[in-house]
């Protein structure tokens, strides 16, 4: 008892000392957290309750030359995830998948793709969510604290597939694109132009995203806005396109049932009035994040709908190349318009007989008639006189074998052979006999439809090769400002008498006894030239069994109008149509629309197809309705013309078996 009383005070003192020590330690701990490490925890607290929401800038609207809206924006809802806010990521994704019906694996894949980004940055899981999905998410806000629904302007192409290649499409910036210096200011998830005008003018169209800093509570609900920077809309572009012509071109392609491409230019300045490539795709599908299946389908489609045939397809120009031969001969002084050649159904060159397409021959023809009748013999002779290198010079001057410089991405160039080219390419000598084939647009020469359109526009104006371009004016938000056209690519300055002779010959093709009669418009003086692009040599054709419709030749029609003061020029290219004159009605329809609009006349109708399902072309050749034709993979066997131009086979030292190229 006594002992206890003595020990108790000691023990109490011990307890007090122990408590004192512990409290001192606690004070030190709080000091460490609250004072020493305050900065770090303050930032963590801010990240907890403050979010920066991107306010997406709408991309600039695209207008046609008359102010019609071509491409615009609409409001869509994106569903995003802020990982930092997710207490249980797996459960959140599972729940989101369940209520929205989106595949959970896909959501997870999306999250994985953005794994290395800061955790506070939203990851867009569902682009363009449906109203039902948005409603379902908002109804379960509390369980989905980390999920955000944002309203974003989304690109809209009201016309669907129309002019799809021209407009291009937009999509989320890719990993590889982010690493490029010009995209340094972009963050993951940004929407940029991926092709077409959307890509070329991306910097102008993009605008500047705004931002809003908000306070959120632990369930993700926004409590208040701390600050806001308004998004800046992208610049608006007025294109050189005339929507009526564009629609007319695509309507005509559908009407006549062809795939292919058409370009309509203003030969006076290089403005693109219409440009189409068929088949196309729907750019709206890309705007909201294309799904893998659609992408694969587009990419593996045999008809290659993603390819812009106008500037990514390379085809042999066929008889349209005769215009280039004529220009070269005239300008080099090799021949005058009155230079005459006798066609007896072919001629001998370098020990071989090259056939003309007309068995009996055209008789004696001058240049105008030779163009009108597309006489092979005449141009064999002319080509032979000019020689390959001067042909190359003039073809290049007219824009063939080089890029046109159009303001669209991924343009390829055609091939215009020369002795130098052959030496460089094959390390071989050029044989003069090869020139004979080139003179009628066969052999090694190949062009893109766009470059052929530029050639035609240059011949039309007779002096200047303009760079085709798509933008007329731009509005940065302070009114429309005209965009100066690019400087001309080349000045040709042909002699006026030469130009006149050429124009007359080309006028006769359409308006006299030529092959372009289907493009004739009363009173409009259309000038043009047809051509056939061989898909495969006749030898190859026999080898391939002559059955596949993919082996049928392509048809060209190049044109301008009116022939004395050209305002519109271009090319129509129809795939596997076999005859250039089948391209002509498409060009005719578009030009009719052009003139009707210019003169304030009612828009023209497309003519009914002659006797569907009765044949449009001679019954012996073709017995099917045009749409059905595209579907078929076989066609009635047809005897190939007598003799082939050999394929572009480097191994063949000498060119051309005797005989003519096919022509109409």
């Amino acid at each position, binding site marked *: 008892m006594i002992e206890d009383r003595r020990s108790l005070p000691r023990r109490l003192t011990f307890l007090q000392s122990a408590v004192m020590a512990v409290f001192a330690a606690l004070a030190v701990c709080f000091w460490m957290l609250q004072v020493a490490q305050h900065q770090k925890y303050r930032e963590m607290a801010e990240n907890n*309750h403050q979010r920066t929401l991107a306010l997406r800038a709408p991309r600039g609207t695209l207008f046609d030359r008359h102010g019609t809206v071509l491409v615009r924006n609409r409001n869509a809802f994106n569903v995003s995830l802020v990982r930092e806010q997710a207490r249980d990521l797996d459960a959140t994704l599972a729940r989101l998948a369940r209520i929205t019906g989106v595949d959970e694996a896909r959501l997870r894949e999306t999250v994985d793709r953005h794994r290395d980004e800061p955790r506070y940055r939203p990851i867009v899981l569902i682009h363009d969510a449906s109203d039902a999905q948005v409603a379902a998410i908002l109804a379960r806000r509390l369980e989905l604290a980390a999920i955000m629904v944002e309203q974003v302007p989304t690109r809209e192409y009201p016309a669907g597939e129309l002019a799809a290649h021209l407009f291009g499409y937009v999509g989320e910036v890719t990993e590889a694109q982010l690493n490029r210096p010009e995209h340094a200011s972009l963050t993951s998830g940004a929407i940029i132009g991926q092709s077409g005008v959307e890509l070329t003018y991306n910097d102008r169209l993009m605008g500047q995203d705004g931002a809003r800093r908000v306070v959120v509570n632990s369930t993700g609900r926004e409590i208040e806005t701390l600050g806001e920077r308004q998004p800046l809309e992208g610049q608006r572009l007025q294109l050189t396109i005339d929507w009526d012509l564009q629609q007319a071109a695509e309507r005509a392609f559908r009407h006549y049932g062809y795939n292919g491409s058409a370009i309509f230019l203003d030969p006076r300045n290089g403005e693109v009035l219409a440009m189409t490539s068929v088949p196309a795709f729907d750019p709206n599908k890309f705007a909201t994040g294309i799904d893998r299946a659609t992408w694969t389908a587009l990419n593996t489609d045999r008809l290659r709908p993603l390819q812009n045939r106008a500037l990514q397809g390379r085809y042999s120009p066929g008889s349209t190349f005769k215009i280039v031969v004529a220009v070269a001969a005239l300008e080099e002084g090799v021949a005058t318009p009155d230079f005459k050649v006798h066609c007896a159904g072919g001629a001998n060159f370098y020990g071989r007989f090259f056939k003309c397409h007309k068995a009996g021959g055209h008789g004696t023809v001058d240049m105008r008639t030779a163009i009108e009748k597309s006489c092979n013999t005449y141009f064999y002779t002319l080509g032979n006189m000019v020689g390959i290198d001067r042909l190359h010079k003039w073809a290049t001057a007219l824009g063939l074998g080089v890029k046109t410089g159009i303001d669209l991405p991924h343009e390829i160039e055609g091939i215009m052979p020369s002795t130098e080219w052959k030496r460089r390419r094959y390390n071989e000598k050029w044989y003069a006999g090869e020139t004979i084939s080139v003179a009628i647009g066969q052999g090694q020469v190949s062009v893109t439809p766009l470059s052929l359109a530029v050639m035609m526009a240059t011949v039309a104006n007779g002096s200047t090769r303009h760079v085709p371009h798509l933008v007329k004016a731009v509005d940065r938000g302070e009114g429309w400002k005209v965009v100066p056209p690019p400087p001309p690519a080349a000045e040709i300055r042909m002699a006026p008498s030469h130009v006149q002779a050429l124009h007359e010959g080309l006028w006769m093709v359409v308006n006299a006894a030529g092959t372009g009669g289907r493009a004739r418009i009363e009173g409009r003086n259309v000038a043009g030239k047809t051509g056939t692009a061989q898909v495969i040599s006749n030898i190859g054709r026999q080898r391939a069994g002559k059955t596949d419709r993919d082996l049928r030749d392509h048809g060209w029609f190049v044109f301008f109008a009116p022939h004395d003061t050209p305002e519109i020029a271009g090319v129509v290219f129809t795939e596997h149509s076999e005859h250039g004159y089948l391209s002509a009605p498409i060009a005719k329809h578009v030009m009719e629309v052009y003139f009707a609009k210019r003169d304030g006349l009612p828009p023209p109708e497309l003519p009914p197809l002659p006797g569907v399902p009765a044949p449009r072309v001679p019954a012996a050749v073709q017995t099917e309705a045009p749409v059905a034709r595209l579907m078929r993979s076989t066609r009635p066997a047809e005897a190939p013309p007598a003799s082939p131009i050999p394929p572009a086979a480097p191994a063949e030292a000498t060119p051309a078996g005797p005989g003519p190229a096919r022509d109409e």
Partner: protein
Amino acid sequence: MFERRLFVHLDWLLLGAILLLAAIGLAMIYSTTYDPVRDRVGPQFFTQFYAIGLGLFALAVCLVIDYRYLAEQSHLILGAIVLMLLYVLFFGFSAGGSRRWISLGFFNLQPSEFAKIALALVLAMFFAENRRGARNWSDLAIAGVFLAIPALLIARQPDLGTAVTLVPIFLGAAFAAGLRVKILVWLAIVAVLTAPLAYSFALKDYQRSRIQTFLDPENDARGAGYQQIQARITVGSGGFTGKGYLQGTQGQYKFLPVAHNDFIYSVLAEELGFVGVAATLALYLFVIFRSLEAARAARDRLGAYLVVALVSGFTFQVIYNITMSAGLAPVKGLTLPLMSYGGSSIIATLASFGLILNVRMRRFTN
């Protein structure tokens, strides 16, 4: 039994410190339950307010009745509590996966809070009556039975946190009663040796994961580690002077769960900063010191043991909760005495201070 002159000896300073802490707690409950959208404070504020009133009444009752009389009746009190704990186990009102409450209609009574007082009384009485105090193993074993009965019943609810707070009460009483240091050392060794066994066999999965989480909170930042990390952020972001009353972002935007209850001190640290922390730590330290002085001044062994037992339980809970509030201890459902929301807790705590004041007040009476 009660004499008016006793009030002369009442420790007004200690009473004032206690009330001040309770008032600060009330203010923090206001802050954590205030809804700025509806400009309204949560119902918890009023519940706590009335509970403090009831607690003051309980304090008065425990003050006026001589603690020796209460100690003599302690076996009955403990018996009654045990019966209530049994009742809770079978008919209790359950919430959050455990049965802890007896529903009284207007109030949910949590008997385990009052078990602490009953145990302190019983142990103080036992050690005081025992001639040898608490010197050997057999005395300790008998006292251990008194501890084990309520502790096991509470642990069964399950409410391991409250059950564990009974242990410091037991140890405090035994230590005051002269428990040999050698025995204490042995107990410590046994505890250390059995800890791994208990970890593997006695703990439930969620309890194990909480301990793992504490050791490595970043590993499970969105699961069990969430509260701990958020607690640290809450405290750390407060800084030296705090974000200001009602201005805390962590508490106001509900990043910290049960802020008005287990984590009220985190919110205090956030809104009032290190200054507020230092002030409240000082107040708690003062309360503990002053209470232990009451033990020193006590007229008899019973009073001294009773005070030490009660203060031990109180101190343990204060230290643990504050440590946890800073994210420095595993998250355990232990309230901060005097400040956390909880009717039974505040009433029981005030009642126990009634007993402490009682002992000091009657230090000169015979």
